[in-house]
């Protein structure tokens, strides 16, 4: 299960949704809005997505995780819109018969989500400025086979 939502993420419900008696291990990851980033104070983040493609990529991540590990339910929710300090931006819950698989799959899903799923955050700094966060993504080199000739 994966979902984009503008509502607060209910981590308890998400965790419950993956529990099962054939899975002795559940791993939940929560990403939350942190106050300080590289010494600067954040007051809020704005999350934007390319929804249709984000859903496609999340479905692929789920399928890839299932191909790598024996898993029960998977639940991934990413929040969009304005998030305040401490709000949960993303939650990943994974159940598995074995804890090693649950940890590895949970880590895989959030690591890959962060480099592949088309969602972006904009920092709203305490000094009143705003700034899109656009890391030098690994995708850049992975997906561009040719060097694009540009003038700078």
């Amino acid at each position, binding site marked *: 299960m994966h979902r984009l939502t503008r509502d607060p993420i209910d981590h308890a419900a998400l965790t419950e949704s993956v529990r099962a008696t054939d899975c002795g291990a559940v791993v939940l990851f929560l990403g939350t809005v942190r106050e300080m980033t590289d010494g600067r104070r954040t007051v809020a983040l704005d999350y934007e997505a390319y929804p249709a*493609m984000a859903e496609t990529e999340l479905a692929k991540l789920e399928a890839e995780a299932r191909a790598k590990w024996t898993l029960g339910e998977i639940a991934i929710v990413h929040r969009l819109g304005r998030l305040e300090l401490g709000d949960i931006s993303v939650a990943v819950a994974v159940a598995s018969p074995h804890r090693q698989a649950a940890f590895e799959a949970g880590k895989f899903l959030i690591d890959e989500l962060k480099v592949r*799923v088309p969602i*972006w955050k904009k920092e709203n700094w305490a000094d009143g400025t705003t700034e*899109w966060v*656009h890391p030098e993504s690994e995708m850049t080199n992975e*997906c561009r086979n040719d060097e694009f000739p*540009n003038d700078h």
Partner: protein
Amino acid sequence: MKFAVRLFARARDLAEAERVELELPEGARVGDVRAMLGERHPALRPVLPSLLFAIDHEYAGDSEPVPQDATEIACFPPVSGG
């Protein structure tokens, strides 16, 4: 062939446009779309090399041709969700 390229996040803000209509010659590749966007919107040039492209919700590299039947081309900066 006419295509509308959807822009997201900082790419949209810099271009001040949610979509850009481009006339692509047959056999055009993603790299050509990149170049045309830079010509149409000079404000995109500083970030142009880092922009990512997707055709019908799949990542596409510069060397990939744009299919004549593509229904949606998107262009956006490296992602930062999570």
